[in-house]
């Protein structure tokens, strides 16, 4: 059975941690006619419960870390987190600020990182497409976990829930690698 690389329309939700807005407006610019990620079926939905991909810009601090966690937890599995901009990756220029804990990966697991200050729209799109490969891998792993005989004997739900974290996938792909990886994951 042949499978398309992207079978679903991935919806994204965007949250601004404590960025300078530079990366936020670049995220929005990706959705606009110039870059137009809607041609991949990507829609900014604004509701974490409908989203597959979580785009975070900016650092985390004491006040917003719970918000970031809550949005992440509200998203249904499988899900992918993309940290956009150097300050979401590591704290960047704000690293030494007293109210900054560091990159987003301090509070939630991050699947793809976009460097740059501000991150360029091309880089953001590349990361989201990379994220889609990871999303597909996580989805396949969940399906496999549900189909596996062990999962049928044991209660199915916990196995499915814990499966995604057990998946091994390369942290960052190039576009060419994604296609190769997608082939691998099919097997």
């Amino acid at each position, binding site marked *: 059975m042949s499978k398309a690389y992207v079978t679903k329309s991935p919806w994204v*939700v*965007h*949250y*601004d*941690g*404590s*960025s*300078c*807005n*530079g*990366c*936020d*407006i*670049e995220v*929005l*610019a990706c959705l*606009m*006619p*110039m870059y137009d990620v809607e041609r991949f079926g990507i829609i900014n*939905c*604004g*509701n*974490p419960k409908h989203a597959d991909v979580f785009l975070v810009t*900016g*650092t985390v*601090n004491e*006040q*917003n870390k719970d*918000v970031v966690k809550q*949005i992440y937890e509200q998203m249904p599995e499988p899900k992918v987190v993309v940290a956009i901009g150097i300050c979401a990756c590591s704290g960047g*220029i*704000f690293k*030494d*600020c*007293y*109210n*900054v804990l560091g990159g987003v990966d301090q509070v939630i697991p991050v699947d793809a990182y976009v460097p740059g*200050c*501000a991150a*360029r729209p091309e880089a953001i799109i590349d990361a989201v497409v990379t994220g889609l490969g990871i999303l597909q891998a996580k989805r396949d792993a969940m399906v496999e976990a549900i189909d596996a005989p062990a999962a049928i004997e044991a209660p199915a739900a916990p196995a499915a829930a814990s499966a995604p974290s057990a998946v091994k996938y390369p942290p960052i792909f190039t576009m060419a690698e994604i296609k190769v990886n997608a082939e691998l994951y099919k097997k």
Partner: protein
Amino acid sequence: MGKRTIVPFGPQHPVLPEPLHLDLVLEDETVVDVIPSIGYIHRGLEKLCETKDYNQMVYVIERICGICSFGHGWGASAAIEGAMGVEIPERAEYLRTILHELSRVHSHLLWLGLMADAFGFESLFNHCWRVRETVLDLFEKNTGGRVIFSICKPGGMRKDISNENLKEMVEVLNGLKAEIKEITDVFINDASVKNRMTGVGVLTKEEAVELCAVGPTVRGSGVAQDLRLAGDHGVYHELGFEPVVEEAGDCMARTIVRIRELLQSIELIEKAVAKIPDGPVDCKVPKTVDGEFATRLEQPRGEAFYYAKGAGSKFLKRMRVRTPTNINIPALVKMLGGSDLADVPILALTIDPCISCTER
């Protein structure tokens, strides 16, 4: 009297790209009270500035806000230049004015788009941002960055922009005028847009003055308050600048102020390019900063205040920035009182909030 309900608005909300949190106290569908709470973006940039020398500091200040980053760089550089007592060359003043007005064009187009999104006009949103991309291309060509430029420095500009490039900039902007008019006509004349904005969120002249509103918010209420008129910075007095004022004080008036400013900025750029003198773009500055200086600048969102105090070394003792959204929040709370729940997104956007400026 109906039962009171509290509805949280934000920090994560579809119309807000930024985390602003409002607790809306509702009676049926009417907002009776608003409790704003901020602090989701506070980073502590003013403190960080004290650990960087005055040249590095400009990079930090620019990242207060990615939308008006040029203005922040200019304000901070001007404050430091004032503390040092240096005068920058005239060409640098002209270049700063041109880039600042170009920032205003991009900022107002961005805001028009977000406003269209807030009342659910998705295609208008897309058109505004499509036009904005052309302006970003101009920025990228002339400064190297799309949103963060790092071209301003204490003592002038980091690099010159050639006269050919400036002429091309004017040509491109003039070419955009027709498209901008087409888009803004929809804002002004479309019946559904009018219904959403006319008479909504009225801020009278007295209230605007009393609440110390700034920028397009106060100019939409009939007060001709614009710091470009004061002429501390830039070459506005040589360009024959007149502030844009509208009388009605509602969302529509504030939108029209921004639309007219958009076209006015293009004209200002055109005039500045025609007059720009040749010459150096930076001058020698002392190695250390001593003394203190406070200055104000008209950002796309209103008046911003910069204060620098030197410590007799390369480092500053204190850098203080006060930004327009901060001052406009009382006006926002006033507008929200008595409004419909459905109008809250429009009203929240009408002051053009920039939360990362507010909290720094």
